[in-house]
């Protein structure tokens, strides 16, 4: 389940403070901010620039370089589906077509009910059990279209049960 707290400058400043002592601290801070807010909020850029003595361009450059950092909040769950070669050999393309049709989204989009954001990924390290996908931080292997449907359904059921 993604954390998606609204932007809070005080909380963000505390995260910066907690990681300030690390050398090369920008990536750890960005990870921590995304874990808290679900994305790198627009307001994070000037804050980081001033706190870390960087230009806004530097911060923006780092945020935009890495695929993992988002600029908008995701849905409640993130589905990362692998489209690299090992999964291709086990018809990942067919699985991806199924997922797109089933969720009615393309890559980088969120479903209308805000439940799932679909992201492509190049390799999850589960290449002997392809095709692979990750829902939040849970890895799944041998994902057939039918297995995808049941994983999506049980993800929502587990959420409803909480």
């Amino acid at each position: 389940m993604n954390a998606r707290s609204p932007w809070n400058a005080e909380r963000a400043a505390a995260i910066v403070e907690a990681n300030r002592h690390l050398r090369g601290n920008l990536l750890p801070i960005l990870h921590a901010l995304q874990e808290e807010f679900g994305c790198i909020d627009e307001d994070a850029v000037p804050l980081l620039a001033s706190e870390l003595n960087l230009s806004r361009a530097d911060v923006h450059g780092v945020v935009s370089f890495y695929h993992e950092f988002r600029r908008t909040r995701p849905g409640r769950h993130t589905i990362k589906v692998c489209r690299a070669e090992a999964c291709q050999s086990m018809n990942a393309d067919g699985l991806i077509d199924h997922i797109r049709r089933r969720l009615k989204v393309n890559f980088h989009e969120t479903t209308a009910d805000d439940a799932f954001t679909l992201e492509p990924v190049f390799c999850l390290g589960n290449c002997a059990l392809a095709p692979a996908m990750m829902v939040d931080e849970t890895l799944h292997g041998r994902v057939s279209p039918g297995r995808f449907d049941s994983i999506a359904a049980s993800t929502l059921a587990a959420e409803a049960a909480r």
Partner: protein
Amino acid sequence: MSATMHTVYVPRDAAALSVGAEEVAAAIRAEATKRGLPLRIVRNGSRGMLWLEPLVEVETAEGRVAYGPVSAEDVPGLFDAGFLQGAEHALGHGLTEAIPYFAKQERLTFARCGIIDPLSVEDYRLHGGFRGLERALAMTPAEIVAEVTESGLRGRGGAGFPTGIKWNTVLNAWADQKYICCNADEGDSGTFADRMIMEGDPFCLIEGMTIAAIAVGATEGYIYIRSEYPHAVATMREAIRLAYDEKWLGDAIHGTAHRFHLDVRVGAGAYICGEETSMLESLEGKRGTVRAKPPLPALEGLFGKPTVVNNVLSLTSVPVILDKGAAYYRDFGVGRSRGTLAFQLAGNIKHGGIVEKAFGVTLHELLYEFGGGTITGRPIRAVQAGGPLGAYLPPSLFDLPKDYEAFAAVEAMVGHGGIVVFDDGVDMARQARFAMEFCAAESCGKCTPCRIGAVRGVEVMDRIIAGQNVAANVTLLQDLCEVMTDGSLCAMGGMTPIPVRSALKHFPEDFTRSPTAVAAE
């Protein structure tokens, strides 16, 4: 009812979890409670026989007995059959270590993986852990470097550069601070050995990095793990915490004057950060753009200081070299490829997993004797060896021995040991297009041949696939590949042409299909 305490192993490896190991462990615990049987469940790493996951093992007097692939629904039946005594069952495979796939391997680096509890220092010690480090603590830095050099160990990340020579450069560099950086940004499709050993034997990596630190005079180290590996990140962090607790890391390693501090850093979804200089930029908190070399990272690396950058498998091979000596390790392998490599069988393969063998094993042995052919049951048409920048090879080359030089001679590479298998349904023109598409998506953008070339490559491939002016476009593609190979700053742009050219060379028929034939499919 027997009151004997039984020990059952259920892997915590991410691949095992991806097919239900957590549910199986819970079901076994519940069933044992229901039946009033005292039971200890150890969450081990994976044995590497991934098609059998979740592979449940039961400790017996004869050794560990394997059952797999087990689902939660199978658990009551396993209890009924008496699996706690190692009884026969439809899912049973007898003694784990007698399974031919496992028995035929030469496990040096992965010797403990899947056997021990990955987060028990005691278990690690019982299985020979920290013996290499203990020996290193009594040696001079130059002696350690010499031992690694003599072992013939070469960089397991793909480039195959002799590890001892790299260490020697760092040892002889003068600086107030030196670093050990472990490259665990295992982004190549078809590879998962780094992930498996970090999850299954994390202390082995800590031990290897500590030995490296003592050898070159470094006092700080980082493990750069890709964000796609949350399980490996969690396991490594916990293992580091335990190692500090037991004084295997910190200011007085094992009561000596040696100091080494280790931290995990997490990548953020950029394939290029597996390139060593790009990884260093990322560790410094910057965009992961490639640096021009020279200066070598060994002289000006992390924060401008002399730095050893080694792959996970290079560093996890170091403890056994120090423990058993250079000659023991060097006696495995062929030619200038010494020791073993953990080959990874992936994609459309019946028996996918880790096969650690000495160099010299052929692709044919790996694909058929170990792998059992494709899972779809169709003939293998191509394999991609060495990741997304590796060559596509046809069955006529499957007798090739796995050896850095033999592979280089046919414009292929061993790389990180990953082998992705495709059956006869594969369209090699599409695979060539994907190689360019991947490069376009993952190029750091610093040099033009890679940044622009990959985009042009996708466009040219689209025209070829559409059957437009194919002969002229293939010539153009060859020209483009030459520019990228000769003009790119690093292996990303420089080697993307390898899968493209190998597909064109070995599977030309896929590039010259008429547009009507393509449209008819």
